[in-house]
């Protein structure tokens, strides 16, 4: 356990290292999620338009 807490502490630099990695992870994830959400929205818009045309 002391090995893990030592690792997390990063010799006193823990807050700097982990905040930098956390922010980066969130931004990278956002860059993949955003187009994924946009695609789903486009698909559902198109499906709605098609249903309207069929009626």
């Amino acid at each position, binding site marked *: 356990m002391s090995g893990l807490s030592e690792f997390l502490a990063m010799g006193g*630099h823990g807050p700097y290292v982990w905040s930098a990695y956390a922010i980066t992870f969130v931004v990278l994830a956002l860059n993949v999620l955003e*187009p994924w959400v946009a695609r789903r929205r486009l*698909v559902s818009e198109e499906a709605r338009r098609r249903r309207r045309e069929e009626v």
Partner: protein
Amino acid sequence: MNWSFFHKLGSPKWFYDISGRWLPWFVLATVLLLSVGIVWGLVFAPQDYQQGNSFRIIYIHVPAAFVAQSCYIMLAVAGIITLVWRMKLADVALRCAAPIGAWMTFIALITGAIWGKPTWGTYWVWDARLTSMLILLFLYFGIIALGQAISSRDTAAKATAVLAIVGVVNIPIIKYSVDWWNTLHQPATFKVTAKPAMPIEMWFPLLLTVLGFYALFTVSLLMRMRVETLRREGKTRWAREALEKMS
């Protein structure tokens, strides 16, 4: 020389088909390169004898800064192709890459600021490297805003292309800022042409995360371009069929 590939490149349907086949491989490369590189960099790489463990921020800071600058060069090239050959796909690439480049510049700036605190004793200084990177962020904002402000697609394509080409002058300024001016920022640790300025067990994970960031950039760019292509080609039959298949 056979130029037919160049005309195919302009075809949205061709791009949509081929990018769909490439995408899973880039996803795989991203996951492998980033997971191995980051675990290696955080856990197994030795700590720096001067900076201790704070140097581990390098494994995200340097890749983000690389991609941020390469992405801008790509925008300028896409801008030239848009102006000279009117290739639709180049404009799609330009518009879709700009937000990713802005986010990469943001990562480079914010991780650099966090790294600066324990290393230099300050989050920010107005030195050449940091300021020119901030200008890069504003250039990206300018391109995104310009593209959204102009409703005519042709005019927007031309205007963003011109801004992308003009702004590329900032890229050599960023690159040589650490040599031309006195700066707090350390000189390049990662060069293609020279032997690495760091031990191999520190350098190799950096190589992995740099490649991983490029792979992730490609994944995000292809995903955005595919959505944008479907949106622009919404009236054609193949695009409608592709959308129908997905619902």
